């Protein structure tokens, strides 16, 4: 079972620690190491490397790592050892990388695989001090079916989560266009164009599309489970099963095993689980159906006025769990509150929101205006925002004396308008969710109990003995061997759902040796992807058709991209030889000669012909 504890760095506070850490070390060394002669081709990107306080140029560690990689190699200088950083929780990534490292050795490349704790891994990649290659996997969230989450963050020149610091100006132009494109058809074209540039310039390489979403549930007690594409049946992120499943026995209480329960019960300061469970208690404005199509939820409908303005119509007749009616004032208050205080989970959705105003109180119409043309209204803005009860949150900040920091607000018993009410809760042990039968999409069962079981063995054991009905699968999926084990237990059904997952490696095009596109082409040939899919994932996954993380089955996939370069060490050696590389006596790869004009041209240009590089420049 691949258990992925935490998701991307932007939404959690961990990167703040990196920030703080860097600030201390930076503070310790008064700015002299700051720029050390590192310049950026296109001044537009200068701001990224200097703007945010303690990053990159202000981080001596980053500077000391990057400077040697931007100086021209002498004659006969070997390609340095390439550092790969992997969190130790992901034992199967390491198993794959052992094979990759062995193969790369035959090419004269040596990898230094760094295994660090997950927390430390997020710190390192946040500060871009993780070395040469960053390995990352997909964690599907409802808002992530919008391409911006990955297509933008992982490769957009001005986004810090672009760990390879790849700055392709054509790519960035397309990205900036698609974010502002509110017409879905036009936006799809732009997103597909972005994927083509990304694949064409050989930046990120996909190791495999998977692991597959395999789940098991107590089929003797429950019927009518709903398979949501990419999520499966048991994820609190896609909670259709908990709405529509019907009991086969007298028991109308579904018991779900979960790896760990809520870190906090306040949705503002939500950890992973509360972000999902929280949106079963508070109503989202819009939600997705099992085919990932956006459907109305708290907002009955919405109409687009122009490329930065929308009118949202609140669904009439909704009530909060304490019986009070949901009014347009609650919606207006929620946005006022978010814009004024919230800088955490909801900020990524409301970052581009200018203002909201009640357009027609009687019919419950609210108008939202964005600072710039906005393309992510439905899948991102409507899905992430929820309705907070004004009568509870109105002056909660003052009452609890937490100043202007919403994170420290304590909500021991969340009251929302969602399909489930917050029932009995014992920290780290169990959480009861009671069905709200007055909800417009009311659950057919009565209760859902989430039981904390920190070990995978514990989850499987309880499933087999019938103590739990299914395993919450937002970050824990079964492997085929585990599924086989469970298959022969009575009353347990195995469910396989097409997944949208991927695992990819992000090299460092801003540094040598990656700046040379020929090196990247050869590098792409050095991965035995079949080993990952067939052995490590035990066959539960697919060989990637192309170097894109919007995999086949993802609504935004670009079907006609160049295929992934096949695993072929001889071809790789041929490419390297053709590009002027040679091998030292000990078999290690050596840079082309300093006077090799083609090499110098390629390294200067970094991108493939037809694209312009805007990122870091070589020194001297």
């Amino acid at each position, binding site marked *: 079972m691949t258990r992925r504890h935490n998701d991307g760095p932007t939404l959690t506070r*961990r990167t*703040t620690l990196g920030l703080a850490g860097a600030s201390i070390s930076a503070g310790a060394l008064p700015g002299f190491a700051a720029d050390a002669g590192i310049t950026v081709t296109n001044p537009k990107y200068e701001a990224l490397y200097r703007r945010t306080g303690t990053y990159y140029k202000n981080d001596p560690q980053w500077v000391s790592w990057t400077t040697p990689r931007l100086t021209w190699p002498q004659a006969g200088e070997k390609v340095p050892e390439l550092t790969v950083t992997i969190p130790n929780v992901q034992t199967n990534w390491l198993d794959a990388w052992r094979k990759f490292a062995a193969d790369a050795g035959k090419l004269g490349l040596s990898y230094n695989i760094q295994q660090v704790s997950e927390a430390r891994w997020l710190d390192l990649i946040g500060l871009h001090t993780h070395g040469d290659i960053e390995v990352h996997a997909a964690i599907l969230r409802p808002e992530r079916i919008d391409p911006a989450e990955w297509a933008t963050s992982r490769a957009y020149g001005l986004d810090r989560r672009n760990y390879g610091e790849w700055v392709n100006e054509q790519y960035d132009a397309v990205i900036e266009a698609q974010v502002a494109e509110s017409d879905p058809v036009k936006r799809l074209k732009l997103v597909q164009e972005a994927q083509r540039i990304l694949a064409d310039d050989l930046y990120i390489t996909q190791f495999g599309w998977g692991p597959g979403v395999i789940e098991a549930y107590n089929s003797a007690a429950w019927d009518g489970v709903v398979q949501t594409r990419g999520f499966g049946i048991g994820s609190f992120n896609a909670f259709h099963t908990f709405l529509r499943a019907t009991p086969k026995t007298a028991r109308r209480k579904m018991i779900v095993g979960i790896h760990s329960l809520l870190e906090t019960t306040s949705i503002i300061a939500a950890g992973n689980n509360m972000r999902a469970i929280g949106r079963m208690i508070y109503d989202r404005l819009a939600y997705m159906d099992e085919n990932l199509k956006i459907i109305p939820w708290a907002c009955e409908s919405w109409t687009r006025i122009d490329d930065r303005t929308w009118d949202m119509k609140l669904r009439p007749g909704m009530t909060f769990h304490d019986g009070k009616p949901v009014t347009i004032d609650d919606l207006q208050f929620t946005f006022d509150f978010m814009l004024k205080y919230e800088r955490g989970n909801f*900020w990524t959705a409301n970052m581009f929101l200018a203002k909201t105003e009640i357009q027609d109180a009687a019919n419950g119409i609210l108008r939202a205006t964005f600072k710039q043309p906005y393309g992510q209204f439905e899948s991102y803005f409507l899905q992430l925002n929820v309705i907070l009860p004004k009568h509870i949150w109105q002056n909660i900040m003052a009452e609890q004396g937490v100043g202007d920091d919403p994170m420290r607000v304590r909500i021991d018993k969340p009251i929302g308008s969602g399909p489930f009410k917050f029932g009995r809760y*014992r920290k780290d042990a169990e959480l009861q969710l009671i069905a709200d039968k007055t909800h417009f999409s009311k659950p057919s069962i009565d209760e859902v109990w989430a039981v904390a079981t920190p070990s995978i063995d514990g989850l499987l054991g*309880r499933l087999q003995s019938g103590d739990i009905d299914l395993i919450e699968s937002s970050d824990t999926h079964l492997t085929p061997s585990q599924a086989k084990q469970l298959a022969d237990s009575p009353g347990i059904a195995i469910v396989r759902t097409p997944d949208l997952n991927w695992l990819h490696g992000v090299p460092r095009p801003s540094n040598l040796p990656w700046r040379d596109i020929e090196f990247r082409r050869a590098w792409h040939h050095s991965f035995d992807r079949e080993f990952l899919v067939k052995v490590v994932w035990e066959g539960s996954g697919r060989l990637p058709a192309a170097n894109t993380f919007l995999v086949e089955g993802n609504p935004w996939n670009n079907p006609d991209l160049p295929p992934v370069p096949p695993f072929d060490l001889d071809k790789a050696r041929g490419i390297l030889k053709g590009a002027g590389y040679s091998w030292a006596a000990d078999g290690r790869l050596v840079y082309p000669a300093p006077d090799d004009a083609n090499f110098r041209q390629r390294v200067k240009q970094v991108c493939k012909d037809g694209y312009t590089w805007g990122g870091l420049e070589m020194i001297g």
Partner: protein
Amino acid sequence: MTRLAQAALRRFLLLALTLWCILTIMFALFKLLPGDPTSIFVDNNMPMEMIEHQKQLWGLNDPMWLQYAHYIANMALFRFGDSFFQNQTVFEILTGKVANTCAMILPALVVSVVLGTVLGALAGWNRGGRFEQATVTTALVLHSAPSFFVGILALMVFSYQLHWLPPGGMVSLGGPEGFWPLITSRDYLLHLILPLLVLVSREITGPILLVRGAMLEIKGADFIDILRAKGLPESRILVHATRNALLPLVTYIAVMTGLLLQGQVLLEIIFAWPGIGRELVTALGDLDYPVAQGALYVMAVVILLLNLVADLLYGLIDPRSR
């Protein structure tokens, strides 16, 4: 001040000194982290001036020694600050967790000591008999088996296969609310059996071997002959001998709690027991340093306090040292 109070005071000061050393080590340890544990709590998209404000708030710019002084003062008063992710004070989080951990450790401690003493005394008394051979060998084997391995096997057999016992956790679904009703509920006892069995099977070896060794010494003592000459029944003599054999066990109890507390992490994960060990593991996973720091410190305090109690207890039991 009576001699006993003086001894207690001296030991208390020593305890304070030891705690102070532990705190210094932890301060240095957490200082090495990329993110300083007393670091500011800032969101990554905050503009620069907000970061400066937070740094001021948390005294990050103070000179090192001032931060150290604040740190020691706060920790000594159990003010661990707020958890990064669970918007609760660390103290609140940990009190609940320490109670849960003690709810597993203390019963195991009592059972191991009582049962260990009885078995050890009997094994020592009928020296060389089959009973002694059997007890000592089983104790050896049980002690050597890794507790997480035994724990999983126990769960596998008694819970998943035979369904005799619940599959872990402190209490079944919808169990009683509040710590005290929970502890006194039958449901909790049912949940305690398996972890208790595993803990006792590992920790009972200490008392058995200690009491047996002490018993062998006492068995040859002269006053035993006198007791027998006085016409006392064998059982009465055994009580006399056991009372003498208890002395070395008392100091061992403190070491035992240390062992119990440290091995706790593994069992709490396997038995899904919401204790302080598991809290530390989650905190480390989330890089939630205030909680990790608090958990480590609370564990150290618990161990040292129990050492102190054991020393004072020794004084009470052994008249010679009073």
